[in-house]
């Protein structure tokens, strides 16, 4: 079997007709000429990319192609890496996120992140979710905080499994539950964009299916950018896909087009498994 039409794996009829029309959705974030250096090594070479509101953008490409680096530029997580230099312009709602007026702390509250390996705090499930709202002062009083926690856990599809043990440590959950807890923790701050860096790579297929469904539901309220090595996953969860190769963005188009009718032969080669 080759990936001639991966969309067959999990058709989503309701999305198909609207796919093209949706291309006119406003851009939540835009990247222009984003270039990243780690010391002397160039990791990204002038990336131009639009991230549309309330849609899922998948970043695919072979290892080391710079897709995670690009993702981490979007909420300035690269700031924490020694020797990392970012050039170009990334805008959130038209405002340069690397500009002087933007505070990295506020930016990361608006652009949340879910990491490759589930990384709940070694605290209770409740404290994990309530931490963000608490430090940002988003909830006044205990009741409101309880409600934020409950809503976030419900949106992350975890409430039913943990509602009776909110005081237990978040690290006691299974891997898939931990990752959903991390998603709940991210959405508890009500971010506008959620970045996911291979959120399923450490999970088994059932937990992966869970997270994928969740991503699809979250799309209604959030703009999502997901890095994945799994092309079927990109096909299943995203509306748009960008293919990265050796620090360049080769092409970005509607997911259906990328997988059925790629314009660049490198994309063609990657999705059919000839290299990568």
């Amino acid at each position, binding site marked *: 079997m080759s990936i001639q039409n991966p969309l067959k794996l999990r058709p989503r009829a309701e999305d198909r007709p609207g796919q093209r029309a949706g291309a006119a959705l406003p851009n939540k974030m835009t990247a222009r000429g984003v270039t990243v250096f780690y010391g002397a090594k160039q990791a990204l070479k002038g990336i131009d990319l639009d991230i549309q509101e309330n849609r899922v953008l998948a970043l695919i490409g072979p290892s080391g192609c710079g897709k995670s680096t690009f993702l981490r530029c979007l909420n300035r997580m690269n700031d*924490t890496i020694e020797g990392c230099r970012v050039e170009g312009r990334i805008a959130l709602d038209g405002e340069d996120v690397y500009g002087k007026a933007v505070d990295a702390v506020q930016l990361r509250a608006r652009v*949340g992140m879910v990491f490759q390996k589930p990384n709940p705090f*070694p605290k209770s499930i409740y404290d994990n979710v309530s931490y963000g709202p608490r430090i940002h002062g988003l909830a006044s009083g205990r009741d409101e905080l309880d409600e934020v926690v409950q809503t976030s856990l419900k949106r992350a599809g975890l409430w039913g499994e943990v509602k009776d043990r909110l005081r237990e440590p978040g690290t006691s959950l299974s891997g898939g539950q931990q990752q959903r807890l*991390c998603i709940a923790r991210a959405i508890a701050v009500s971010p506008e964009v959620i970045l996911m860096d291979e959120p399923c790579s450490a999970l088994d297929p059932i937990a992966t299916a869970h997270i994928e469904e969740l991503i699809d539901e979250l799309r209604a309220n959030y703009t999502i950018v997901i890095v994945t090595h799994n092309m*079927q996953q990109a096909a299943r969860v995203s509306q748009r896909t960008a293919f990265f190769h050796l620090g360049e963005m080769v092409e970005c188009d509607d997911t259906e087009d990328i997988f059925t009718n790629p314009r660049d032969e490198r994309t063609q080669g990657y999705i059919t498994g000839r290299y990568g």
Partner: protein
Amino acid sequence: MTDLVERDAAAVTPSPASTTPPKSRLRSEAFARRLRARHAAERRFRLAGAAAVALAALMLVLLLGSIVAKGASAFLEARIRLEVTLDPADVADRNYAAPLRRALYAQFPQVTDRAGRRVLNDLLSSGAPYELEAMVAKNPALAGTTQTIWVRADDQIDQLVKGGYRRDLPESERGLSDAKVAAADALLASGALAQGFNTTLFTAGDSREPEQAGIGGAIVGSLLTLLVTMALSVPTGIAAAVYLEEFAPKNRWTDLIEVNINNLAAVPSIIFGLLGLAVFLGFFGMPRSAPLVGGLVMALMTLPVIIIASRVALKAVPPSIRQAALGIGASPLQTVLHHVLPLAMPGILTGTIIGMARALGETAPLLLIGMVAFIVDVPHGLTDSATVLPVQIYMWADSPERAFTERTSAAILILLGVLILLNGAAVILRKIFERRW
């Protein structure tokens, strides 16, 4: 997808003919020989390891055994029972030696000559009148009454009771006159000479007379010194470690600082004493023998230890925790205070307590700033003259009296006890604060 898998499988699986070694080589006699040699080597290694552990344990047992054997008797002291009649005139004159002597002479009616009475006087500790004085000061109603009291015996009698003198030796070689031995034996026979728990050892300051000497002053001195050390080095050390590990840029300057901190941890402690002498006493004119100065010197000495231990503990916190906190918009300081520091706390505490234990057992730098003085009073403040436990042990070990030998061992036992307590606290704190992730 399947293409990928198939292609990968083809690349990994080697062709059977080229790489699989001939099976006969793994079954050959030579291979079996090598295998036996490998197992034998492992057995030898294990044996050597077990022997090393056994040797270390034996040394420890020998060391502790000899200290306990020498020091255990110091926890008891010989006391003499006397029927003391407190003449109001003597009390008014504050002459407490006279009533004690009268009571003692009454127990030996046959002794009337001056030489005999001097022997009897020497049975009592020279501190006995002060014991009586303290008793009367506490209860003035005792004046004019007759009381049965136990007073401390002289250290030679104390040692005689504990078997420190060999009775079979002739008088000239024994170091204790026959007359004293006879008098002590008479008291023992009548039950007027007995041993009790030695509270003096814990409450008194230093003294020239072994039976009046205690480590109370040294313990208070050690506590005051450690207090200063802790107050200075713990906050400074943790703050420095957090800054260097979490905030400071990694450049040539921070590298230089790191190298210097590591070197500082290896500097011999006596150098810190010299520094304290030159800077704190010489330049700032601080008082000699004071716990304040001792604490300052110890803080300088402990600081690198705490910084290094804290940095190791901070490094051990997985970066994913920092990313998680930063990723939801915690500021770097919040990330450190809410997540990193609590997780690093067990390691930091262990390092701190080990540093404190080292400071508690340190002698050399304190000798240079005058804490080696003979100090009778228990210190009451940071600038009072004081000494510390290990220095007290050092001074007692220098004293010629037999009774100081056992007190030296007893003081070592107490110091070891405190150190074990501190290390135990480190283990318990570690267990309490430890969190898994």
